[in-house]
């Protein structure tokens, strides 16, 4: 098996768009299944009453991380051909704070807003219009923020490279950390439910 298939020329640009549509369907389907078409379900994460966002997101990360690690280890996927976004640390930290603040103010993140809008939520549609306006503002201000946008470049760098540890060890530690955090998340949910006088779920 020569994977990633697209990078080995198994199909061209036009077919890749069909693949994109099909992968998008899977993505949207599972986001909605998880309850991420609901702003109150999503934002409950930030009031600690329902940590589904954390559980779903980290289960997805662990699944894809382990899958890719094993496929790479067996020589089935050339990991050097999987695109890694270059790190620009400070703008990404600032962008993270802005996006997190926007998430809890608006009730959705960009992907979940699409799913919520497709299931009839008008607030999600307005949220998407806000995102579009934000991008216009960023685009129009780009000549002035360009210096900051490219600040603190670290190149394409992974945690194993940064920490000088083996890929397998970091994968193992992240998976271990996630399992501990899942148990912690369930404990927090029960505590919050008990404290506010509700029945523990």
């Amino acid at each position, binding site marked *: 098996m020569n994977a990633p298939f697209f990078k080995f020329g198994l199909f061209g640009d036009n077919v890749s768009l069909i693949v994109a549509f099909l992968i*998008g369907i899977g993505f949207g389907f599972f986001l909605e299944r998880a309850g991420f078409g609901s702003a109150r379900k999503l934002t409950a994460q930030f009031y600690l009453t329902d940590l589904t966002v954390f559980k*779903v997101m980290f289960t997805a990360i662990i699944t894809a*991380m382990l899958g890719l690690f094993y496929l790479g280890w067996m020589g089935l996927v050339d990991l050097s051909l999987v695109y890694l976004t270059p790190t620009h640390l400070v703008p990404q930290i600032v962008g993270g704070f802005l996006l997190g603040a926007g998430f809890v103010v608006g009730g959705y*993140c960009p992907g979940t807003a699409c799913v919520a809008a497709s299931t009839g939520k008008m607030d999600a549609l307005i949220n998407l219009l806000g995102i579009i306006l934000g991008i216009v503002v960023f685009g129009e201000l780009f000549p002035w923020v360009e210096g900051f946008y490219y600040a603190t470049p670290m190149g394409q760098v992974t945690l194993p490279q940064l920490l000088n540890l083996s890929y397998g060890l*970091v994968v193992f530690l992240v998976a271990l950390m996630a399992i501990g955090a899942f148990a912690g998340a369930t404990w927090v949910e029960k505590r919050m439910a008990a404290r506010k006088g509700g029945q523990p779920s």
Partner: protein
Amino acid sequence: MQADVQPLTAEQVGAHTHHAVPRAPQPYTNPYLAGFGLGLVLLASFVIMGRGLGASGAFSSLVAFGADAVAPEHTRANAFYAEYLGDHTRHPLMDWLVFEVVGVFAGGFLSGILAGRVRMGIERGPSTTNRMRLMYAFAGGGLMGIGAKLARGCTSGQAMTGGALLNVGSWAFMMCVFAGAYAVAYFVRRQWQ
């Protein structure tokens, strides 16, 4: 208010979206099962395409396309828009993320309709108004648009995709998303209560 302290069920969320249809929505999938499904979709994207998922990038293509239609000279002189317009050999909307996001709408609708969760409405807590909720939704979207572009991706393209690839910038971004949301949550709690 007891309902608000427990993990929300699909029924409770449905109860606060108006114009309810008679059919009761089905409960949400177990979070670990849904996360596993999401992880397999992400893995499939890595294996088939050599790239991960995304969302905000599609809207950047849309914005660049719109700006180019309105003011082509202004748009093409801007390095940010130019990146999304490419070399003009392809239509800017013939883009991988644009097609993926169209799929996200379709997949979300498919899951919603199968579970009886598609209903028109504005989701909010009982003690706020629709107008306030929509203003918050718009303002939050604006903040996310700017944040996602500064970070080179959103929760999909950076946190999930980069998270699985152990990308340093993605992990820093992800922690700051949670930190930013927790820092602001208290001040906007009334729209959900």
